[in-house]
Protein backbone atom coordinates (compact mmCIF):
# COMPACT_ATOMS: atom_id res chain seq x y z
CA UNK A 1 0.00 0.00 0.00
CA UNK A 2 1.28 3.46 -0.90
CA UNK A 3 1.09 6.18 1.70
CA UNK A 4 -2.22 7.95 1.46
CA UNK A 5 -1.76 11.75 1.23
CA UNK A 6 -2.95 13.64 4.29
CA UNK A 7 -5.12 15.89 2.10
CA UNK A 8 -7.05 12.84 0.85
CA UNK A 9 -7.69 11.75 4.43
CA UNK A 10 -8.78 15.26 5.46
CA UNK A 11 -11.15 15.48 2.49
CA UNK A 12 -12.58 12.05 3.32
CA UNK A 13 -13.05 13.21 6.91
CA UNK A 14 -15.29 15.93 5.47
CA UNK A 15 -17.57 13.34 3.82
CA UNK A 16 -15.90 13.55 0.38
CA UNK A 17 -16.90 10.24 -1.22
CA UNK A 18 -14.33 10.50 -4.04
CA UNK A 19 -11.44 10.75 -1.57
CA UNK A 20 -12.90 7.86 0.37
CA UNK A 21 -12.99 5.81 -2.83
CA UNK A 22 -9.25 6.53 -3.28
CA UNK A 23 -8.62 5.29 0.26
CA UNK A 24 -10.64 2.16 -0.56
CA UNK A 25 -8.61 1.53 -3.72
CA UNK A 26 -5.34 1.79 -1.81
CA UNK A 27 -6.27 -0.30 1.22
CA UNK A 28 -8.95 -2.78 0.17
CA UNK A 29 -6.35 -5.29 -1.10
CA UNK A 30 -4.66 -5.94 2.22
CA UNK A 31 -7.92 -5.52 4.15
CA UNK A 32 -9.49 -8.29 2.06
CA UNK A 33 -6.48 -10.61 2.35
CA UNK A 34 -6.17 -10.18 6.12
CA UNK A 35 -9.91 -10.64 6.59
CA UNK A 36 -9.92 -13.73 4.35
CA UNK A 37 -7.06 -15.36 6.24
CA UNK A 38 -8.68 -14.71 9.61
CA UNK A 39 -12.25 -15.71 8.79
CA UNK A 40 -10.95 -18.45 6.43
CA UNK A 41 -13.85 -18.03 4.02
CA UNK A 42 -14.38 -15.73 1.00
CA UNK A 43 -18.02 -14.86 1.62
CA UNK A 44 -17.38 -13.94 5.24
CA UNK A 45 -14.29 -11.97 4.17
CA UNK A 46 -16.46 -9.89 1.81
CA UNK A 47 -18.80 -9.09 4.68
CA UNK A 48 -15.85 -8.16 6.91
CA UNK A 49 -14.40 -5.84 4.23
CA UNK A 50 -17.74 -4.09 3.96
CA UNK A 51 -17.92 -3.71 7.75
CA UNK A 52 -14.33 -2.47 7.88
CA UNK A 53 -14.88 0.29 5.33
CA UNK A 54 -18.15 1.43 6.85
CA UNK A 55 -16.35 1.49 10.18
CA UNK A 56 -13.48 3.50 8.67
CA UNK A 57 -15.93 5.93 7.06
CA UNK A 58 -17.69 6.59 10.37
CA UNK A 59 -14.55 6.69 12.54
CA UNK A 60 -12.35 8.66 10.14
CA UNK A 61 -13.44 11.92 11.80
CA UNK A 62 -11.81 10.67 15.02
CA UNK A 63 -8.50 9.81 13.33
CA UNK A 64 -5.98 12.32 14.75
CA UNK A 65 -2.91 11.41 12.63
CA UNK A 66 -1.02 10.39 15.78
CA UNK A 67 -0.51 6.82 14.57
CA UNK A 68 0.09 5.45 11.09
CA UNK A 69 -3.08 5.25 8.99
CA UNK A 70 -2.11 1.76 7.82
CA UNK A 71 -1.76 0.52 11.41
CA UNK A 72 -5.15 2.05 12.18
CA UNK A 73 -6.75 0.25 9.21
CA UNK A 74 -5.07 -3.03 10.20
CA UNK A 75 -6.47 -2.64 13.72
CA UNK A 76 -10.02 -2.07 12.48
CA UNK A 77 -9.69 -5.03 10.08
CA UNK A 78 -8.41 -7.40 12.76
CA UNK A 79 -11.12 -6.32 15.22
CA UNK A 80 -13.90 -6.71 12.65
CA UNK A 81 -12.57 -10.10 11.52
CA UNK A 82 -12.19 -11.40 15.09
CA UNK A 83 -15.70 -10.23 15.98
CA UNK A 84 -17.03 -11.90 12.84
CA UNK A 85 -15.34 -15.21 13.72
CA UNK A 86 -16.71 -15.04 17.26
CA UNK A 87 -20.19 -14.38 15.88
CA UNK A 88 -19.92 -17.38 13.54
CA UNK A 89 -18.71 -19.63 16.38
CA UNK A 90 -21.66 -18.51 18.53
CA UNK A 91 -24.08 -19.22 15.68
CA UNK A 92 -22.50 -22.62 14.98
CA UNK A 93 -22.78 -23.57 18.64
CA UNK A 94 -26.41 -22.53 18.65
CA UNK A 95 -27.09 -24.57 15.52
CA UNK A 96 -25.24 -27.55 17.02
CA UNK A 97 -27.33 -27.29 20.15
CA UNK A 98 -30.46 -27.06 18.02
CA UNK A 99 -29.24 -30.07 15.97
CA UNK A 100 -28.60 -32.09 19.10
CA UNK A 101 -32.13 -31.38 20.24
CA UNK A 102 -33.41 -32.67 16.90
CA UNK A 103 -31.17 -35.77 17.11
CA UNK A 104 -32.67 -36.52 20.47
CA UNK A 105 -36.14 -36.37 18.95
CA UNK A 106 -35.15 -38.59 16.01
CA UNK A 107 -34.37 -35.88 13.39
CA UNK A 108 -30.95 -35.63 11.63
CA UNK A 109 -28.77 -32.56 11.03
CA UNK A 110 -27.18 -31.76 7.65
CA UNK A 111 -24.37 -29.61 9.17
CA UNK A 112 -21.54 -32.20 9.59
CA UNK A 113 -21.73 -33.27 5.91
CA UNK A 114 -21.55 -29.66 4.69
CA UNK A 115 -18.51 -29.10 6.90
CA UNK A 116 -16.81 -32.22 5.53
CA UNK A 117 -17.23 -30.98 1.95
CA UNK A 118 -15.67 -27.61 2.88
CA UNK A 119 -12.80 -29.34 4.68
CA UNK A 120 -11.85 -31.15 1.49
CA UNK A 121 -11.67 -27.93 -0.50
CA UNK A 122 -9.41 -26.08 1.89
CA UNK A 123 -5.88 -25.20 0.84
CA UNK A 124 -2.88 -25.87 3.10
CA UNK A 125 -2.75 -22.35 4.56
CA UNK A 126 -6.43 -22.47 5.47
CA UNK A 127 -5.92 -25.82 7.17
CA UNK A 128 -2.93 -24.50 9.10
CA UNK A 129 -4.73 -21.35 10.18
CA UNK A 130 -7.78 -23.44 11.06
CA UNK A 131 -5.97 -25.12 13.95
CA UNK A 132 -5.17 -21.80 15.65
CA UNK A 133 -7.37 -19.75 17.91
CA UNK A 134 -8.40 -16.40 16.49
CA UNK A 135 -5.84 -14.30 18.43
CA UNK A 136 -2.94 -16.54 17.38
CA UNK A 137 -4.28 -16.51 13.82
CA UNK A 138 -4.24 -12.70 13.79
CA UNK A 139 -0.58 -12.67 14.88
CA UNK A 140 0.46 -15.29 12.31
CA UNK A 141 -1.38 -13.48 9.49
CA UNK A 142 0.18 -10.12 10.37
CA UNK A 143 3.68 -11.61 10.69
CA UNK A 144 3.89 -14.42 8.13
CA UNK A 145 1.59 -13.12 5.41
CA UNK A 146 1.62 -9.32 5.83
CA UNK A 147 5.24 -9.18 7.00
CA UNK A 148 4.69 -6.78 9.92
CA UNK A 149 7.45 -6.49 12.54
CA UNK A 150 6.81 -7.41 16.18
CA UNK A 151 6.57 -3.71 17.04
CA UNK A 152 4.02 -3.10 14.27
CA UNK A 153 1.94 -6.08 15.40
CA UNK A 154 2.12 -4.79 18.98
CA UNK A 155 0.90 -1.33 17.82
CA UNK A 156 -1.84 -2.82 15.67
CA UNK A 157 -3.25 -5.18 18.27
CA UNK A 158 -2.47 -2.83 21.17
CA UNK A 159 -0.71 -5.60 23.08
CA UNK A 160 2.73 -5.86 24.67
CA UNK A 161 5.55 -6.93 22.33
CA UNK A 162 6.26 -9.94 24.57
CA UNK A 163 2.63 -10.99 24.23
CA UNK A 164 3.15 -10.90 20.45
CA UNK A 165 6.22 -13.14 20.89
CA UNK A 166 4.32 -15.57 23.17
CA UNK A 167 1.32 -15.79 20.83
CA UNK A 168 3.56 -16.48 17.85
CA UNK A 169 5.50 -19.12 19.78
CA UNK A 170 2.36 -20.95 20.94
CA UNK A 171 0.80 -20.69 17.48
CA UNK A 172 3.90 -22.18 15.86
CA UNK A 173 4.13 -24.97 18.43
CA UNK A 174 0.56 -25.85 17.61
CA UNK A 175 1.30 -25.75 13.88
CA UNK A 176 4.27 -28.09 14.38
CA UNK A 177 2.08 -30.53 16.31
CA UNK A 178 -0.52 -30.34 13.57
CA UNK A 179 2.16 -30.98 10.92
CA UNK A 180 3.47 -34.02 12.81
CA UNK A 181 -0.04 -35.45 13.15
CA UNK A 182 -0.80 -34.88 9.49
CA UNK A 183 2.43 -36.66 8.57
CA UNK A 184 1.50 -39.61 10.83
CA UNK A 185 -1.95 -39.88 9.21
CA UNK A 186 -0.40 -39.88 5.73
CA UNK A 187 1.92 -42.71 6.68
Amino acid at each position, binding site marked *: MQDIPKETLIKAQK*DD*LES*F*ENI*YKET*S*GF*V*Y*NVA*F*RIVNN*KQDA*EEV*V*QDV*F*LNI*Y*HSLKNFRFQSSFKTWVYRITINCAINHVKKIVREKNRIKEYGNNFMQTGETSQMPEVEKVNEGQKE*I*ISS*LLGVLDVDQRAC*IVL*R*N*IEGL*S*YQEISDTLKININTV*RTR*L*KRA*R*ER*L*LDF*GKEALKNEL
Partner: protein
Amino acid sequence: MNCEKIKELILTDYIDNEISGEKKVRLNIHLAHCLECREFFEMVKNTIVEPFASAKKIDPPGFIWYRVKEAIIAKQQERLGFVASIFKKLRSVFYIPKPALAMSTIMALLFIVALMVNLKFSNKQALETNREDQAEYSTFSIETPVNAVLNNDGGFGTLVEKYFL
Protein backbone atom coordinates in the same frame (compact mmCIF):
# COMPACT_ATOMS: atom_id res chain seq x y z
CA MET B 1 22.43 -21.08 25.44
CA ASN B 2 20.98 -24.58 25.77
CA CYS B 3 18.96 -26.36 23.06
CA GLU B 4 15.62 -25.51 24.68
CA LYS B 5 16.35 -21.78 24.60
CA ILE B 6 17.70 -22.07 21.04
CA LYS B 7 14.49 -23.79 19.87
CA GLU B 8 12.41 -21.07 21.51
CA LEU B 9 14.40 -18.42 19.66
CA ILE B 10 14.14 -20.34 16.39
CA LEU B 11 10.34 -20.38 16.77
CA THR B 12 10.18 -16.63 17.27
CA ASP B 13 12.92 -14.02 16.84
CA TYR B 14 15.27 -16.08 14.66
CA ILE B 15 12.85 -16.96 11.87
CA ASP B 16 11.30 -13.51 12.08
CA ASN B 17 14.63 -11.63 11.82
CA GLU B 18 14.00 -9.89 15.12
CA ILE B 19 17.20 -11.08 16.77
CA SER B 20 20.11 -8.76 17.61
CA GLY B 21 23.54 -9.15 15.95
CA GLU B 22 25.54 -10.79 18.74
CA LYS B 23 22.72 -13.17 19.73
CA LYS B 24 22.29 -14.17 16.11
CA VAL B 25 25.98 -14.99 15.76
CA ARG B 26 25.89 -17.18 18.90
CA LEU B 27 22.79 -18.95 17.64
CA ASN B 28 24.35 -19.58 14.23
CA ILE B 29 27.43 -21.09 15.91
CA HIS B 30 25.17 -23.36 17.98
CA LEU B 31 23.26 -24.43 14.86
CA ALA B 32 26.49 -25.27 13.10
CA HIS B 33 27.43 -27.68 15.89
CA CYS B 34 24.03 -29.10 17.00
CA LEU B 35 22.29 -31.48 14.60
CA GLU B 36 19.07 -31.67 16.67
CA CYS B 37 18.58 -27.89 16.62
CA ARG B 38 19.48 -27.73 12.93
CA GLU B 39 16.83 -30.34 12.14
CA PHE B 40 14.33 -28.44 14.28
CA PHE B 41 15.11 -25.25 12.36
CA GLU B 42 14.62 -27.04 9.01
CA MET B 43 11.29 -28.44 10.17
CA VAL B 44 10.09 -25.02 11.34
CA LYS B 45 11.12 -23.49 8.03
CA ASN B 46 9.32 -26.15 5.98
CA THR B 47 6.19 -26.45 8.11
CA ILE B 48 5.62 -22.87 9.22
CA VAL B 49 7.51 -20.37 7.11
CA GLU B 50 7.31 -21.67 3.56
CA PRO B 51 3.57 -22.42 3.28
CA PHE B 52 2.75 -18.84 4.33
CA ALA B 53 5.45 -17.34 2.14
CA SER B 54 3.72 -18.82 -0.89
CA ALA B 55 0.30 -17.48 0.16
CA LYS B 56 -1.52 -16.07 -2.86
CA LYS B 57 -2.71 -12.47 -2.64
CA ILE B 58 -6.33 -12.25 -3.71
CA ASP B 59 -7.99 -9.15 -5.15
CA PRO B 60 -11.27 -8.19 -3.52
CA PRO B 61 -14.32 -8.54 -5.78
CA GLY B 62 -15.36 -5.25 -7.40
CA PHE B 63 -18.91 -5.34 -6.09
CA ILE B 64 -17.74 -4.74 -2.50
CA TRP B 65 -17.04 -1.06 -3.22
CA TYR B 66 -20.54 -0.60 -4.69
CA ARG B 67 -22.04 -2.18 -1.58
CA VAL B 68 -19.95 0.08 0.66
CA LYS B 69 -20.86 3.14 -1.42
CA GLU B 70 -24.55 2.26 -1.34
CA ALA B 71 -24.46 1.79 2.43
CA ILE B 72 -22.67 5.16 2.88
CA ILE B 73 -25.19 7.01 0.70
CA ALA B 74 -28.09 5.31 2.52
CA LYS B 75 -26.55 6.35 5.84
CA GLN B 76 -26.08 9.95 4.65
CA GLN B 77 -29.71 10.11 3.52
CA GLU B 78 -30.84 8.55 6.78
CA ARG B 79 -28.85 11.21 8.66
CA LEU B 80 -30.43 13.99 6.59
CA GLY B 81 -33.85 12.45 7.12
CA PHE B 82 -33.19 12.29 10.85
CA VAL B 83 -32.30 16.01 11.01
CA ALA B 84 -35.39 16.89 8.96
CA SER B 85 -37.59 14.79 11.24
CA ILE B 86 -36.19 16.57 14.33
CA PHE B 87 -37.09 19.95 12.78
CA LYS B 88 -40.55 18.65 11.95
CA LYS B 89 -41.06 17.44 15.51
CA LEU B 90 -39.83 20.74 16.94
CA ARG B 91 -42.21 22.63 14.68
CA SER B 92 -45.13 20.51 15.80
CA VAL B 93 -44.18 20.95 19.48
CA PHE B 94 -43.82 24.72 19.20
CA TYR B 95 -46.61 25.18 16.66
CA ILE B 96 -48.40 28.52 16.97
CA PRO B 97 -51.00 29.60 14.39
CA LYS B 98 -49.68 32.44 12.21
CA PRO B 99 -52.20 35.25 13.04
CA ALA B 100 -51.74 34.62 16.76
CA LEU B 101 -47.96 34.73 16.36
CA ALA B 102 -48.12 38.00 14.40
CA MET B 103 -50.50 39.56 16.93
CA SER B 104 -48.37 38.56 19.90
CA THR B 105 -45.27 39.98 18.20
CA ILE B 106 -47.01 43.33 17.57
CA MET B 107 -48.26 43.46 21.16
CA ALA B 108 -44.80 42.71 22.49
CA LEU B 109 -43.27 45.45 20.31
CA LEU B 110 -45.90 47.99 21.40
CA PHE B 111 -45.28 47.15 25.04
CA ILE B 112 -41.53 47.64 24.64
CA VAL B 113 -41.99 51.00 22.86
CA ALA B 114 -44.44 52.23 25.54
CA LEU B 115 -42.05 51.20 28.28
CA MET B 116 -39.15 53.06 26.67
CA VAL B 117 -41.20 56.27 26.12
CA ASN B 118 -42.41 56.19 29.72
CA LEU B 119 -38.89 55.74 31.05
CA LYS B 120 -37.61 58.64 28.98
CA PHE B 121 -40.29 61.09 30.28
CA SER B 122 -40.03 60.06 33.93
CA ASN B 123 -36.27 60.56 33.80
CA LYS B 124 -36.67 64.03 32.33
CA GLN B 125 -39.10 65.07 35.11
CA ALA B 126 -36.78 63.82 37.85
CA LEU B 127 -33.90 65.74 36.31
CA GLU B 128 -35.85 68.99 36.19
CA THR B 129 -36.96 68.70 39.84
CA ASN B 130 -33.40 68.04 40.88
CA ARG B 131 -32.14 71.03 38.93
CA GLU B 132 -34.80 73.35 40.51
CA ASP B 133 -33.83 72.16 44.00
CA GLN B 134 -30.19 72.86 43.35
CA ALA B 135 -30.92 76.34 41.99
CA GLU B 136 -33.07 77.17 45.02
CA TYR B 137 -30.33 76.02 47.41
CA SER B 138 -27.68 78.02 45.57
CA THR B 139 -29.79 81.19 45.75
CA PHE B 140 -30.37 80.62 49.47
CA SER B 141 -26.65 80.05 50.12
CA ILE B 142 -25.62 83.21 48.27
CA GLU B 143 -28.32 85.55 49.68
CA THR B 144 -28.38 84.45 53.35
CA PRO B 145 -25.32 85.27 55.54
CA VAL B 146 -23.96 82.47 57.72
CA ASN B 147 -24.70 84.36 61.01
CA ALA B 148 -28.36 84.59 60.12
CA VAL B 149 -28.55 80.86 59.99
CA LEU B 150 -26.70 80.36 63.23
CA ASN B 151 -28.52 81.00 66.59
CA ASN B 152 -27.22 82.87 69.64
CA ASP B 153 -24.93 80.02 70.78
CA GLY B 154 -23.23 80.03 67.41
CA GLY B 155 -24.88 76.75 66.52
CA PHE B 156 -27.55 75.65 64.13
CA GLY B 157 -30.04 74.81 66.91
CA THR B 158 -30.17 71.09 66.16
CA LEU B 159 -31.16 68.45 68.76
CA VAL B 160 -27.74 66.87 68.59
CA GLU B 161 -26.07 70.16 69.51
CA LYS B 162 -28.48 70.65 72.43
CA TYR B 163 -27.68 67.24 73.80
CA PHE B 164 -23.90 67.55 73.68
CA LEU B 165 -23.31 71.25 74.32
